[in-house]
């Protein structure tokens, strides 16, 4: 590191040559030519500043375009019918996404019911119980699971249930929830472990020194102390999977009708609704695209509200930066 800084010392005057007549090694390395004039260095600095700022502005463009388009196009069908009707026997205009909203709530809710206990308990195991080697093994597995593409999680859930029921055409909301759990559990574990590890060791020692058994130390001291962080992590994990399309498209299928039972038959979800409205347009595409954008708007709103709630919870409990 220090050798890298050496050129700066001589930055305002030409470096001295060594006996071989060549520039010293530190002055040749790193591509920094120190004999460059001050004006040239200023110019390069200005170019770099412009480039960095441009990169930032360039990245904001798609976000701005995406948000404004979704809001403008989505408001067209952001009406009462959209939230109170399904697509049953709708061929053109009208209809709504109630079946998809119900499906998304049930599937994501079920996934959370599975993932939160498993994820938080596993995090407690990693942070409080396991030996260091075991705990880094489990965390390694969690990291690998984090890298599973969402469509592969869907394929796994399909493979599992099609073998269990010996039915190649098996589809249900519950299988979708299993697929989402595969994606959600590692996220919950990762964030929970981080927050459990933030709990000061003195608290545990004090509790244990008073003779409190370990399980009560964990449930009464460690978990309550990190409660805000744990909740934040769970909400962000929900926000991550609620927009998942690919796994639900292949295991929960799609339908135009209401289905309140996650354990049988196809179940629509909001992201899949958006996709099918786009992919299976009628002769007049306008109402289909309007419904797709309205669905996208609802999805973005849900995700943003979840993120906001996570932030507020984190702030309320004061354990998140």
């Amino acid at each position, binding site marked *: *590191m220090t050798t890298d*800084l050496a050129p*700066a010392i001589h*930055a305002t005057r030409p470096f001295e040559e060594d006996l071989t007549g060549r520039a010293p090694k530190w002055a040749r390395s790193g591509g920094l030519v120190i004999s460059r004039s001050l004006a040239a*260095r200023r110019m390069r*600095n200005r170019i770099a*500043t412009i*480039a*960095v*700022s441009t*990169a*930032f502005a360039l*990245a904001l463009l*798609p*976000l701005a*375009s*995406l948000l404004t*388009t979704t809001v403008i196009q989505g408001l067209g069908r952001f009406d009462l019918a959209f939230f109170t009707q399904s697509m049953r026997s709708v061929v053109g205009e009208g209809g709504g996404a109630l079946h998809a909203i119900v499906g998304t709530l049930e599937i994501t809710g079920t996934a959370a019911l599975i993932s939160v206990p*498993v*994820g938080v*308990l*596993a995090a407690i*195991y990693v942070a409080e119980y*396991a030996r260091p080697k*075991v705990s880094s093994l*489990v965390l390694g597995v*969690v*990291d690998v*699971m*984090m*890298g*599973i*593409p*969402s469509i*592969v999680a869907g394929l796994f859930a399909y493979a*599992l249930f099609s073998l269990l029921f010996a039915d*190649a*055409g098996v589809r249900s909301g519950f299988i979708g929830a299993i697929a989402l759990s*595969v994606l959600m559990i590692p996220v919950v*574990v990762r964030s929970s472990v981080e927050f459990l590890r933030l709990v000061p060791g003195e608290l545990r020692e004090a509790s244990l020194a008073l*003779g409190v*058994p370990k*399980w009560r130390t964990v449930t009464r001291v460690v978990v309550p102390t990190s409660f805000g962080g744990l909740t934040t992590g769970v909400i962000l994990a929900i*926000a*991550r999977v609620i*927009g*998942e*399309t*690919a796994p639900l498209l*292949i295991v929960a*299928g799609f339908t135009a009708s209401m289905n309140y039972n996650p354990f049988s038959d196809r179940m629509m979800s909001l992201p899949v609704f*958006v*996709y099918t409205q*786009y*992919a299976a347009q009628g002769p007049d595409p306008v109402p289909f*695209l309007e419904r797709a954008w309205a669905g*996208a708007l609802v*999805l973005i709103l849900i*995700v943003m509200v979840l*993120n906001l709630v996570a932030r507020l919870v984190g702030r309320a409990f004061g354990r998140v930066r």
Partner: protein
Amino acid sequence: MTAETRAHGLAPTGQDRRGDRVFGGAVRAAGVTIVVALAAVGVFLVAQSLPALLADGGELPGAAPSFLDYVWPLAFGTVWSATLALAIATPLAVGIALFISHYAPRRLAQGLGYVVDLLAAVPSVVFGLWGILVLAPLVQPLYAWLVDNLGWFPLFAGPASGTGRTVLTAAIVLAVMVLPIMTAICREVFLGTPKLHEEAALALGATRWEMVRMAVLPAARGGIVSAIMLGLARALGETMAVAMALSPALVIDFALLTPTNPSTIAANIALQFPEASGIGGNALLATGLVLFVITLVVNIVARLLVRGRRGNR
């Protein structure tokens, strides 16, 4: 230990020991569940893929002579579109992260960080919708111009797509989608570089850019590489944006702007699965297995790089 202290619950009682056993067992079971779940993902995918892997020619979709012939164009499309996306996203991510960590005023930087996180929260199907309905029509004239004027360059070979739904459009959408995670990692690495070196460089008269080149980028090289690898893993597995943003064909073609584009494994599964039956379904599962292995390798390499960097310090 007298009976009195026991009554106050200070010494472990039988109930406490049972509680420890039950709770300890529950958390251990949860830990085991995760390991079993990962193993199950591999086992069930392999089990359901075998019929396709062992199938004779002709049974597979598209009458491919063997599974390898079937998956090869898809694997090519997956890697090609992800590589393009990374080529676009990497300089941008480094630029944005630098802007937030070293250029923007501190108060502004925090808000900007939040904006970038917001991008990460947008569901992929919305990106897909945006890609096809907004971006594709927008860039189509540019594609036509490129083909007309720079068509001699192999990447820009014609004919130009009339819809703008090409592999380049998909790559742009993918780039926007992987930007947040790459930016987040780069930003953290840049903020973690040794502050004293930066101050020393500035104090000795270096310009801001020289300071970045001397004190920030060298220390952050490993972090940038791992950001690229994690972004790559994301781009490889992304489904809906690609499924919606390009018109797919089973071809191997480097041209960026034509109407026939190589599909990706993930997009192909999403598009074909609802109608697939019999060995066709198994073939799709087998391609999913291939995708799983590819992303696994990329992820592991990324982690090893991160670990190697930490070890060097």
